[in-house]
């Protein structure tokens, strides 16, 4: 038994020895149970225990708990120890509570009272113990109970340094756990001056607290920038200051330096030229020191030095403004790539990923391509190889795509299973993004399936099909290539799927060659049929029916296959149904009908690659943001071409069977799904649920009956104004107000008076929308000469509205509905005016209303992580891209209500992005026929003042302002 330090609790040491001497788990449990029984009887016994005994037993319980056993008593005794005058008893009591008492424990009130007593004592060691306990538990109740005491300690002149340190970090813990409770008061304005404190320990502790405050409100604490820079400069650049014990293995104050460098990453480069120069000087000095010979051979020296260096590089990347520093940083990291320390190679690869996204250093990073490829091939640690993959992905551009993709494909053959799927996604994305020649792209994807077929997710092969369908220059090549790939005796099922789909669409392009005649194609595919899963077989059946249309000469062969028992009587209901229906279709339908139904698939609407979405979901941190930013900056050819294709397809909506619609039980259904008529049917032919698409339909509240809808909205009875007779150019009273209610919702009552009630249901999908207007006759007479006219005015360029006819009579008590289809061509501000006229008992009535179509309806919500959000946010910084309003809240500032409104506004509510959890940030994509516009929203409520600050940024001029004006009155 080793010497027991400090006050010995011999009984405890003996017990620990006993436990260690136990030969088996059972013996240990037995010994523990004996001890627990003993302690329990002591605690329950009549004899009052003295403080020492209580402490000893509590400590034993703690030990037992830390061994992994449950402890269900002793809490009260521990709480009693808190009020002991003896330091050691108090200390053990606090330790037990910190480790064992959850935030929700009933005893918490007593604990908080004891803490408050200790905080009020004049004894710094007691104060420190109490603070440490608060920092360890950090519960809401503690924040409520101590929100005044702790800030006071922090800024009071009487407080000694070590207590200040604890107070700063305790306060930080409470700010993190319950930010809404801690009052921001006088202390906050004084806090940044702690950066000037004499005591390095105080500055170190305070720097963390300040960073937290800064994240919430950078503007308020802006003064800390110059303070931090000068403090940093004193540490880094002066050679004479002796920091004594704060120098760690010859590195001056590495912890404080790193905290300061991190603090500065919350701000743009300093505006004040003097501060900026000083900061640049610091960063240069840090880079210079990296080149100096080490002052010690100890790894602690190099770790501490490099920790500061990497943090400095992070700041350089964050500021992204000084090409000289960026390139120097890149060169330094380049040296580390070949360092003998694995840790440094790992970190260098990681930091370089960020550098690759800066336009200033992207080229410099590319110089290290060979080294990175070597790392990929030779590193022994998979986590390092993973970093190498990430970096190759980040440094890839048009010039090196072919080589990088080639290397990644080669590596994939031997890659660790744990990273294969991610690599497949990355290769697929790079190949698509940088394809100059789409034959190359097709080759890469087919290679992926060949090499790592099991890891090729649906998104990947869906995508290659989308692209082949949208680009007619590659279709023949794709058909030829898949045909060749299918020749392999064993090919992956994913290859069969892609092959089946592509030959079903474009097999005719290679049918001229006798080596790939229709019959050969069919036989090749069918030879794989029996080895495939039902879903692939279903797809192949669709291919076969497409062949019937493409190659009438093999119709009989195919019909024979469809007729076979194996298909017609397959136990899988989907296969059986397909076989029967396709057989019927091929027998009954005329060539013309067949040709229409089985026509080539229309081009897919252009959208973000679903593969990218998948990669982001899988590993948000591994998708370098810059690559996407660049994509926005230079829209590439394929995207533009594809969207052209989309518009042409809309004018002639084809009706086509979609080969992949699995699980649809009837052919009719499938045909319906395949027809993007006026946006009514799902245009998402592949059923690829990108996140934006899956959330979009939820905004429409299903097929609720109009009657229900009216029932639920009885609150909306606007003052029943008598309809004005004769001509009235203005809006009917109450119309504007009712209209505003539709900004955040799609259904409801638009207007009501004594005669009529007008309800609206609407649904939107990307740039297309439909509104059904329901005119209900509340009277007991027929309304005659009923007509509705929509005046678009100047809107006609921005919004194309197609109005379906409506009957000229509305019977008493009846309802008629009218449909409007509206496509958004470009952003618009005003809503179209609809005027409704009718005769009621011989009197002409006229109602003028705004048709509730507003720009935000064409937004679909977008999900993104925090770094993506901020990168994009920063990218949209020009004044015309931003609109900001500060205004008084018009309704209660309830978090859930605000969320509901934002969701109703069609943007996402992104959690965990804004450092201040009170704030809301949202993102969305505005779909217009002409372009897609990225939308970012930040809403900062100030509950005390009952005010909001609303900031909208959008990638197209004016859009931000329009949306800001729409959203503001909703809040």
């Amino acid at each position, binding site marked *: 038994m080793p010497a027991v330090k400090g006050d010995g609790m011999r009984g405890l040491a003996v017990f620990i020895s006993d436990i260690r001497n136990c030969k088996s788990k059972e013996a240990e449990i037995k010994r523990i149970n004996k001890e627990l029984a003993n302690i329990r009887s002591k605690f329950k016994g009549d004899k009052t225990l003295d403080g020492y005994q209580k402490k000893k037993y509590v400590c034993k319980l703690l030990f037992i708990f830390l061994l992994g056993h449950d402890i269900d008593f002793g809490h009260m005794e521990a709480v009693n120890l808190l009020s002991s005058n003896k330091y050691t008893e108090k200390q053990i009591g606090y330790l037990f509570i910190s480790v064992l008492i959850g935030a929700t424990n009933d005893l918490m009130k007593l604990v908080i009272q004891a803490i408050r007593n200790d905080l009020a004592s004049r004894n710094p060691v007691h104060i420190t113990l109490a603070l440490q306990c608060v920092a360890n538990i950090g519960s809401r109740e503690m924040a409520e109970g101590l929100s005044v005491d702790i800030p006071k300690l922090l800024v009071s002149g009487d407080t000694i340094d070590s207590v200040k340190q604890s107070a700063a970090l305790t306060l930080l813990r409470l700010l993190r756990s319950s930010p809404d409770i801690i009052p921001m008061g006088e202390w906050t304005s004084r806090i940044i001056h702690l950066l000037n404190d004499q005591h390095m320990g105080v500055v170190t502790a305070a720097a963390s607290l300040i960073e937290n405050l800064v994240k919430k409100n950078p503007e308020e604490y802006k003064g800390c920038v110059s303070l931090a820079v000068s403090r940093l400069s004193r540490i880094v650049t002066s050679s004479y200051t002796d920091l004594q014990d704060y120098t760690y293995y010859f590195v001056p104050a590495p*912890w404080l330096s790193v905290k300061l460098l991190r603090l500065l990453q919350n701000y743009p480069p300093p505006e004040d030229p003097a501060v900026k120069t000083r900061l640049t000087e610091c960063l240069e000095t840090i880079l210079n020191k990296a080149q100096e010979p080490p002052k010690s051979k100890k790894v602690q020296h190099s770790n501490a030095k490099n920790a500061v260096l990497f943090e400095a590089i992070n700041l350089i990347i964050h500021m992204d403004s000084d090409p000289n520093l960026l390139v120097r940083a890149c060169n330094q990291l380049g040296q580390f790539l070949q360092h003998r320390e694995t840790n440094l190679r790992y970190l260098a690869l990681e930091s370089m990923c960020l550098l690759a996204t800066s336009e200033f250093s992207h080229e410099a990073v590319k110089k290290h391509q060979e080294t990175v490829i070597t790392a990929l091939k030779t590193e022994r640690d998979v986590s390092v190889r993973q970093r190498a993959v990430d970096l190759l992905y980040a440094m890839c551009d048009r010039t090196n795509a072919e080589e990088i993709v080639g290397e990644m494909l080669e590596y994939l053959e031997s890659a660790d299973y744990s990273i294969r799927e991610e690599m497949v996604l990355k290769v697929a994305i790079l190949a698509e993004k940088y394809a100059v020649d789409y034959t190359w792209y097709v080759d890469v994807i087919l290679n992926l399936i060949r090499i790592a077929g099991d890891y090729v997710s649906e998104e990947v092969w869906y995508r290659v099909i989308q692209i082949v369908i949208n680009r007619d220059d590659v279709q023949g090549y794709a058909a030829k290539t898949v045909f060749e790939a299918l020749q392999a005796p064993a090919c992956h099922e994913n290859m069969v799927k892609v092959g089946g789909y592509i030959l079903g669409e474009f097999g005719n392009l290679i049918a001229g060659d006798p080596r790939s005649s229709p019959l050969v194609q069919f036989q090749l595919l069918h030879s794989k049929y029996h080895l495939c899963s039902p879903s692939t077989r279903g797809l192949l059946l669709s291919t076969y029916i497409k062949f019937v249309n493409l190659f009438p000469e093999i119709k009989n062969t195919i019909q024979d296959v469809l007729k076979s028992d194996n298909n017609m009587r397959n136990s899988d209901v989907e296969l059986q149904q397909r076989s029967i229906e396709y057989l019927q279709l091929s027998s009954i339908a005329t060539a013309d009908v067949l040709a229409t139904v089985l026509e080539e698939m229309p081009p897919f609407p252009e959208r973000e690659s679903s593969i990218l979405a998948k990669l982001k979901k899988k590993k948000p941190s591994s998708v370098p943001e810059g690559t996407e930013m660049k994509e926005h900056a230079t829209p590439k050819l394929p995207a533009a071409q594809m969207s052209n294709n989309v518009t042409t397809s809309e004018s002639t909506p084809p009706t086509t069977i979609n080969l992949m619609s699995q699980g649809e039980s009837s052919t009719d259904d499938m045909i319906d799904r395949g027809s993007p008529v006026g946006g009514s049917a799902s245009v998402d032919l592949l059923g690829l649920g990108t996140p934006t698409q899956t959330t979009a339909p939820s905004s429409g509240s299903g097929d609720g009956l109009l009657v229900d809808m009216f029932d639920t909205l009885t609150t909306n009875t606007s003052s029943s104004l008598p309809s004005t007779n004769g001509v009235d150019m203005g809006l009917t009273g109450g119309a504007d107000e009712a209209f505003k209610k539709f900004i955040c919702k799609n259904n409801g009552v638009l207007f009501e008076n004594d005669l009529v009630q007008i309800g609206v249901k609407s649904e939107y999908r990307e740039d297309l929308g439909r509104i059904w207007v329901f005119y209900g006759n509340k009277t007991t007479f027929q309304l005659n000469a009923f007509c509705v006219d929509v005046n678009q005015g100047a809107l006609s360029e921005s919004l194309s509205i197609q109005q379906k006819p409506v009957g000229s009579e509305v019977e008493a008590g009846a309802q008629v509905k009218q449909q409007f289809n509206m496509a958004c061509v470009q952003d618009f501000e005003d809503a179209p005016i609809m005027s409704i006229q009718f005769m009621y008992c011989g009197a002409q009535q006229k109602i003028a209303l705004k048709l509730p179509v507003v720009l935000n309806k064409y937004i679909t919500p977008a999900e993104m992580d925090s770094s993506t959000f901020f990168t994009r946010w920063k990218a949209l910084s020009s004044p015309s891209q931003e609109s900001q309003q500060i205004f008084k809240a018009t309704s209660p500032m309830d978090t859930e209500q605000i969320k509901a409104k934002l969701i109703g506004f069609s943007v996402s509510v992104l959690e965990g992005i804004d450092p201040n959890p009170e704030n809301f940030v949202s993102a969305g994509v505005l779909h217009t026929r002409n372009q897609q516009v990225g939308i970012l929203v930040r809403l900062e409520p100030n509950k005390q003042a009952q005010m909001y600050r609303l900031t909208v940024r959008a990638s197209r001029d004016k859009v931000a302002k329009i949306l800001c004006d729409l959203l503001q009155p909703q809040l």
Partner: protein
Amino acid sequence: MMQFMLLFSRQGKLRLQKWYVAHQDKMKKKITRELVTLVLARKPKMCSFLEWKDLKVVYKRYASLYFCCAIEPEDNELLTLEIIHRYVELLDKYFGSVCELDIIFNFEKAYFMLDELLLGGEVQETSKKNVLKAIAAQDLLQEECDEPKGFLEELGLTTGS
């Protein structure tokens, strides 16, 4: 901010656990099991950093003990290694060439020392001198108030506590 620190032996026995974010006991056990297995499976020359869920894990082995910290993505890995080292130095100085047994038998001291170095998952005091001074002051207080323990306590011992 550091989310938690675990000390465990080569046999996978947990010697110290410090959680800076609240988790249910069940969750803590699950995380511990997962990380202990993960870290023990790694070979000596491998990198000291791993990605784990949305956190970074930094670990280092000292003799028979592994020190393992989980930090957030924006935290500095190399400096976390040095936090571990500073903690080891403190233990070493206090116990005089620390070994696993010291930490087992004086686990409460190990916790007290950690609270001086790190608070709420952030570095509080990096000066070795200041931390040791604080701990020495604690010990002094203990001796002062523990003097009158005497025979009653010995009695407690003999009755099998």
